[in-house]
C-alpha cells in the first residue's frame, strides 16, 4: 500500500465516525459499556483526563496489554493516545495495528520542538487544535482527523466552544482575503498556501472535525453539533458520572437528535449525577496550551 492510499483510507475511516461519539475508556469493562451504549469508537488510555489532572505526574501512552484487552472486548475501532512528539510511542501503537492514534495534549508532551511526522505512519492520526493555523499544521504533518482541544478533564464545555468558533470564524475570514493576504497567512502559520486555498474554497477543513474537551452532558453534545461539529469525543464525562451507561447512551442520542428539542428534553431527564466540573480560571494547568 503506498503512502497516498493509506492517507486517504485514514481520512475515509474518520468519515465513517461522523455523527458519532468516541468515548475514553481505561479498561475492557468500560469499553464494553461504551460499545453497548452506542459509541462509534473507544479511546484507550491509562487514566481519564480528570484523574490525570487530580493525581498529577507524567501521563504516558497506555500499556500495550491494556490496549490489546480493550481491542479484544469490542468490535468498534480502538484509538489510543500518545504524547505530543513521541514518535516511539506512536511506533509501538503502529506495531499493535491500532485503528487510530491521538497525539494528545492530555498526556505530558515529549518533544518541545516538533509534533510527530504523521505522514510516515500507516495508522491514521487525530490531533487537537485551538485555531485554524494549528489545525492546518497538524493536517500538513499528516493528521487524518482534527478535534478541538477544549479543556479536558474539566466537564466545562466553554473551551471546546471557543476553539470550534475560532476555527470556524478563521475559515470564514479566509473568504475575504486577497491572494497576498492568504499567502501571508500561510507563511505566518507555517503551512502551504495550497492547503489554505483549499480550505478557503471548501469553507471547511479537508478532514473530519470533531469536538473534544469538557463535554459532560447530552446538552453539551447537542450545543456543539448545532454549531456544525461532525462528532464528539467524551473523556471524563462518562465514567465520572454516577450512571455511566445511562449518560453514555444519552450523549449518543443527543448527538444524533441535536436539532430535536423534544427528544433532547426526554434524553436529558433523570440521568443522575453528572461529573462535577471545574471553572477554567481555577486551573493550575491548562492542557490546551500544550502543543502549538
Amino acid at each position, binding site marked *: *500500500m503506498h503512502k497516498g*492510499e493509506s492517507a*486517504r*483510507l*485514514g481520512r*475515509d*475511516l474518520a*468519515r*465513517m*465516525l*461522523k*455523527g*458519532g461519539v468516541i468515548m475514553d475508556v481505561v479498561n475492557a469493562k468500560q469499553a464494553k459499556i461504551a*460499545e453497548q451504549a*452506542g*459509541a*462509534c*469508537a473507544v479511546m484507550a488510555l491509562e487514566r481519564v483526563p480528570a484523574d490525570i489532572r487530580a493525581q498529577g505526574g507524567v501521563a504516558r501512552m497506555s500499556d500495550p496489554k491494556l490496549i490489546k484487552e480493550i*481491542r479484544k472486548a*469490542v*468490535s*468498534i*475501532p*480502538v484509538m489510543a493516545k500518545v504524547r505530543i512528539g513521541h514518535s516511539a510511542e506512536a511506533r509501538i501503537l503502529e506495531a499493535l*495495528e*491500532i*485503528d*487510530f492514534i491521538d497525539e494528545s495534549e492530555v498526556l505530558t508532551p515529549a518533544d518541545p520542538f516538533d509534533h510527530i511526522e504523521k505522514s510516515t505512519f*500507516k*495508522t*491514521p492520526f487525530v490531533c487537537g487544535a485551538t485555531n485554524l493555523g494549528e489545525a492546518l499544521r497538524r493536517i500538513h504533518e499528516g493528521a487524518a482527523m482534527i478535534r478541538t482541544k477544549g479543556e479536558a478533564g474539566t466537564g466545562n464545555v466553554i473551551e471546546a466552544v471557543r476553539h470550534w468558533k475560532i476555527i470556524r470564524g478563521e475559515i470564514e475570514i479566509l473568504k475575504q482575503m486577497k491572494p497576498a493576504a492568504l499567502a501571508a497567512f500561510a507563511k505566518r502559520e507555517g503551512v502551504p498556501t495550497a492547503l489554505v486555498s483549499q480550505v478557503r474554497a471548501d469553507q471547511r477543513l479537508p478532514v473530519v472535525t470533531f469536538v473534544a474537551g469538557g463535554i459532560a452532558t447530552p446538552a453539551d453534545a447537542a450545543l456543539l453539533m448545532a454549531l456544525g461539529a461532525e462528532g464528539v469525543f467524551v473523556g471524563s464525562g462518562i465514567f465520572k458520572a454516577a450512571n455511566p451507561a445511562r449518560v453514555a447512551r444519552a450523549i*449518543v442520542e443527543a*448527538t*444524533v*437528535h441535536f436539532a*430535536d428539542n423534544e427528544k433532547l428534553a426526554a434524553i436529558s431527564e433523570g440521568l443522575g449525577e453528572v461529573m462535577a466540573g471545574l471553572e477554567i480560571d481555577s486551573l493550575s494547568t491548562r492542557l490546551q496550551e500544550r502543543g502549538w
Partner: protein
Amino acid sequence: MTVGVLAVHGDFSEHRSVLASLDVESREIRTLEDLAPLTHLIIPGGESTVMGGFLERTGMGKRIQKRVAEGSLAVFGTCAGAILLTKKITGKLPPHSLKLLDATIERNAYGTQHQSFEASITVLVVRPKITVAFIRAPRFTKMGKSVSVLAKHNGDPILVRQGRILASTFHPEVTGETAIHALFLKL
C-alpha cells in the same frame, strides 16, 4: 422517486454528495416520519452496532422490513449498511439485523485499519472498472439461492443483490463513484 439516507451516524453526507452529482435530490432520515415518503433508502458506512441499535430502539427497523415486504421500498447498504441488511451476521457482538438479504456476513473480516485497502473492481453491467475503498470491511461468506453476485474481489462477493435489496462490502461513496448508486436508483 424519493431517496433518503439514514443519517444516524457514518458517512451519510458522502452518499448525499454522490446522489447530488447524479442530479438526484435526497433527504436525511432520522425518524419514522422521515421514512414514510421514501421509495429508496441508503444505509451508509459507519458502525453497524450504533445504527443497528438505533433502528431497533426507534422501531425504524421493523418499519423498513414491512415496507420492503410490501415492495414499496428499495434499500442499498454499504459496509455497515450491508451488515445490517444481512440475515446472519458472524463475528464479535453481532448487531440487530434487518434480515432482508439471505446471506451470511462476517463483520470486520479483514482486520484493523491496517488491513483497509482501495481496489479497482469490475461490476456486472457497469463499465469501465471503478475504484472503491474497503474500510475495516466485512466479508460475505455464504449466499442464499435468491441472491445474485454482481461483483467479486479476490474471489469474495463484494456487491450482491436480492430483489430490491443491494449491498456492498465496499464504499463507492468515498471515492465519489456514481455507478453503483445509479444502479440502485433503477431498482
